[in-house]
């Protein structure tokens, strides 16, 4: 058997190299997010947001931008025979799950690197809440990456992939989004960040991440079977 970390590194490097070369996912995700912020800015007719409204605008936008990347996560594996190549290799298939989830996490972090400063520029009076927001973004991204990878691998063989991913994914990430917005609300409060129940929400996010990472690791092998 090839060591799992070798397979993980090979698949992750292949995915990141392909994305850097083709830019198939990230620009679309970023463009979607920025356009949505512009629409919110003019739709709400407000130059400043705080609390739950700011949290809602931020997470709704990031979630739907993430769906674009999740939809495409396994397309190369499906269309270019990557699934067969990986099933023929002497590797633990969970390495594919871990590599894909890590690639998606990297896309989400890159997306946020571009879009969160734009969000702050459009809507926030102060940048004080951005530092604690980083912890929320990281934990929510891990959950989105684990769940998104799992759902994407199931949906990729369907012709209705673009419909199936949001239909199955969105209900599954409702707890994640409740925790993410719950943690973000006080952090982006008017008058500076507060930390009411901040730790509790972070723990909920961490628990969600753990559960879906373990579920993905446990079932992924069966998802690749004929």
């Amino acid at each position, binding site marked *: 058997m090839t060591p799992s970390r070798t397979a993980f590194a090979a698949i992750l490097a292949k995915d990141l190299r392909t994305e850097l070369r083709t830019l198939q996912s990230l620009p679309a995700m970023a463009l979607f997010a920025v356009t949505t912020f512009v629409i919110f800015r003019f739709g709400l007719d407000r130059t400043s947001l705080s609390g739950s409204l700011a949290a809602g605008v931020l997470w709704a936008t990031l979630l739907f931008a993430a769906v674009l990347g999740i939809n495409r996560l396994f397309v*190369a594996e499906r269309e270019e025979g990557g699934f067969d190549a990986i099933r*023929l290799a002497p590797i633990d298939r969970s390495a594919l799950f871990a590599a894909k989830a890590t690639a998606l996490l990297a896309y989400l972090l890159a997306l946020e690197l571009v879009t969160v400063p734009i969000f702050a520029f459009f809507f926030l009076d102060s940048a004080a809440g951005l530092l604690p927001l980083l912890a929320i973004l990281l934990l929510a991204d891990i959950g989105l990456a684990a769940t998104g990878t799992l759902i994407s691998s199931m949906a990729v063989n369907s012709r209705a992939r673009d419909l199936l991913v949001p239909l199955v994914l969105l209900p599954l990430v409702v707890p994640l989004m409740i925790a993410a917005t719950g943690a973000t609300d006080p952090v982006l409060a008017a008058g500076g960040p507060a930390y009411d129940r901040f730790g509790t929400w972070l723990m909920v996010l961490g628990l969600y991440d753990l559960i879906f990472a373990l579920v993905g690791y446990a079932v992924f092998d069966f998802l690749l079977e004929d």
Partner: protein
Amino acid sequence: MDEKQPAAEPAIRLAGLRRDYGERTALDGVGLTLAAGQSLVVLGPNGAGKTTLLRILATLLRPSAGEAVVLGCALPDEAWKLRGRIGYLGHEPLLYRDLSGRENLRFHAKLHGIERGRAEARIAALLAASGMERRADERVAELSAGMRQRLAICRCVLHEPELLLLDEPDSNLDAGGRELAQELIGPGGGRSRVVVTHDPERHLPEADQVLRLGIGEAAAVS
């Protein structure tokens, strides 16, 4: 004392092999034994189940019924032991279009746990043997179908498999390509081979056994 040596494990042993896709039976009643190092040529019209048979042997499909033992591993339960010992050349080249040929081969070498130095030497040798040295750093998407097939052959033998499963290996290859391919995936070298083909004139001379599959007919081995 005259001790009997145990008979060598056959490369493939099939008995009553069947595969259904829902209500449709794609393959039924296939039975044969292929000794190690021998070549089996599979013939039959489109839809007779040739590719299905190859995919079962490659552990990519589960049999619906019957027995399949490949390189001593019973399928599907011991499929995990078999991976890495098979070289599979299917209809798809299993190459990523946005990577170059060399990058694809490096990727597959890593998946098969080939140490880096040995992988580089092996890749260089295969690219030379397949006539792909000059185009190896171009993206696969920019190559012709014949060149992709040459790279797919390199991928198929990269990890020096014990059993080759070849589905129409000559497709898209010109005469020169077929000759080069013969050196890489032809008979010999102690490898066992299963070759699915629509070109019996070319492949029958190298067959130790022939399996004829028909639609709605019993499979015949000769």
